[in-house]
């Protein structure tokens, strides 16, 4: 359904600004009827890739096709079959939700009868009856997001693209949106969503791609990606907050324990230790070894590999660390300017 080939995009590079390589040879293929998750920290290039896909931005290099149509040369045909729910919901505060949907329907050239019927369906589906005739300016974040989703679905797109659809939403709105996305997929719509929430991608996506620094670094079903890692994960804390010295001592102690494949010190989590162990009763051996060395145990937990482990394996850091490392580096104002036409 979607083919992104060798996409590159650079921003800035003017006299005052350092240039940013938002996309760096990004390749991605989304099969038809798939609910596909694009996972990555803020600033990984997810939004840029989606904006290119939705004809809002031209890449510096590379090719994009949707359902066999070239996005760069046949943008209008592509726009007809895709619905786009942007990250920052742009709604007209003065209009009511229903008026906005009617406007959207006209922009997609729906006939009046079809438009009204479709709007009524979506109002019921997304639970918007109570407030749809109030002005959009009075809506909460969850209401705005639901309205925006309805706008994206109005023309029955074959492909729905959502950029961080549940950021900052209440649990109820998030559940409502997840449910609709699953229904859509079940009924044949291809859904592509970006997210930096592991659990969202894990819960929803049939397939996912991990995006880091403008490239896809891992791709597959969540299960396959987790299974490919192999082994179990063990998180060990000898104290609630340890220090570098102690962590290194414990690391050295456990490194050679039979069944332990890898021991990594996680500095951002109070110098806890992340172990990869072979399946089985390694935990007991660890306990004995720690007791023999007279080390306390604050927490010791075993789990199957998670999506975060997949991320860690692929990038060398956890998603949370990746988020924190870019948190101070981005300039929202500048990014908004760049997205302005």
């Amino acid at each position, binding site marked *: 359904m979607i083919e992104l080939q060798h996409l590159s995009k650079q921003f800035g590079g003017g006299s005052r600004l350092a240039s940013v390589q938002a996309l760096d040879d990004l390749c991605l293929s989304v099969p038809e009827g798939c609910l596909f998750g694009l996972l990555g920290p803020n600033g990984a290039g997810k939004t840029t890739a989606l904006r290119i896909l*939705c*004809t*809002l931005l031209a890449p510096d290099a590379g090719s994009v096709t949707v359902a066999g149509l070239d996005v760069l040369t046949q943008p*209008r*045909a592509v*726009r*007809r*079959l*895709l619905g*786009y729910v*942007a990250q*920052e919901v*742009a*709604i*007209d505060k*003065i*209009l009511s939700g229903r*008026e906005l949907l*009617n*406007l*959207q329907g*006209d*922009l*997609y*050239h729906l006939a009046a009868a079809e438009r009204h019927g*479709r709007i009524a*369906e979506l109002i*019921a*589906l*997304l*639970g918007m009856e109570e407030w749809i005739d109030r*002005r959009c300016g009075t809506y909460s974040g969850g209401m705005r997001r639901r309205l925006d989703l309805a*706008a994206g*679905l109005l*023309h*029955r*797109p*074959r492909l729905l693209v959502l950029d961080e659809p549940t950021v900052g939403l209440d649990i109820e709105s998030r559940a*409502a949106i997840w*449910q*609709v996305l699953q*229904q*859509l997929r*079940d*009924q*044949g*719509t291809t859904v592509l969503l970006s997210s930096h929430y592991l659990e969202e991608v894990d819960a929803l996506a049939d397939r996912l791609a991990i995006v880091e620094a403008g490239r896809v670094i891992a791709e597959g079903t969540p299960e396959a990606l987790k299974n490919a890692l192999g082994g179990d994960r063990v998180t060990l804390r000898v104290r609630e907050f340890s220090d570098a010295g102690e962590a290194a001592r414990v690391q050295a102690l456990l490194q050679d324990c039979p069944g332990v494949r890898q021991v990594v010190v996680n500095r951002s989590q109070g110098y806890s230790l992340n172990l990869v162990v072979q399946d089985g009763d390694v935990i007991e051996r660890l306990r004995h070894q720690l007791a023999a060395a007279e080390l306390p145990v604050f927490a010791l937990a075993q789990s199957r590999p998670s999506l975060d482990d997949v991320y860690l394996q692929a990038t060398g850091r956890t998603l949370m660390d990746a988020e924190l490392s870019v948190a101070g580096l981005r300039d929202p104002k500048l990014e908004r*300017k760049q*997205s*302005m*036409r």
Partner: protein
Amino acid sequence: MTSATPSLGPLQAVAAEPSAFAEIRQETLALTRRLFVQLARRPSTLVAGVLQPLIWLVLFGALFANAPEGLLPGGGSYGRFLGAGVIVFTAFSAALNAGLPVMFDREFGFLNRLLVAPLRSRSSIVLASVLYITSLSLVQSLAIMVTAALLGYGWPGAAGLLLVLVTLLLLVFAVTALSLGLAFALPGHIELIAVIFVANLPLLFASTALAPISFMPTWLGWLAALNPLTFAIEPIRAAYGGAFHLSNVVLNAPYGDLSAATCLGILAALAVGLFLAIRPLLDRKLT
């Protein structure tokens, strides 16, 4: 939340392509309707747009009410003279604001919503602004004309009224093109408002709205005789002056005499020229 409905599935059969005209009409009317709904719920621009020229008319009219007889060419009261200027000023100020809604749509990302939609022609976005601002400025100008008539400053005859409307339309097209161009060229609404603010009054003073060219120092007379507002004011003033003909000389410019027809021709050329001039910019921003 209701459970799954079959309606969620994508549309498989693609209907035959409707005519381009029907699609452009649908999207343009929808976008225009949005602007009018905004106006109806936030009428302050409409009110201010009528109030400001009204204040000009009343205060300026009063200021020079006791000017010596025969001061103005062709006699007549100052209020009568001022009327044409204020009507044009009203239409001009309204059209100058045409770019503001577009600028806000750019800034708040609403334009992206329009650009993701399969618009038949993205000129619909521009066309909607032109339709909206044209009707708005004509309504405001008519309100001023009625007020001027009530103040005893006269009313053009039927033919005169037609000339007034055509003149205003041409001016509004030209200024709207300029404003829309600025809305896409400038980085934000602060800059756009600043340009509007700075352009507004000097263009009024450097025109024949408040005083005839014969009153002005030579340099200002030249400026006024090159000012597009003057080319709109003088035909309207002639229409208010009673029987006239398009070939009548309405402006004694330092570089020669201009007829009403010439003034209208200049305005039309200006409107077309400005739309052609901003086209590359619109194409760049909208594709």
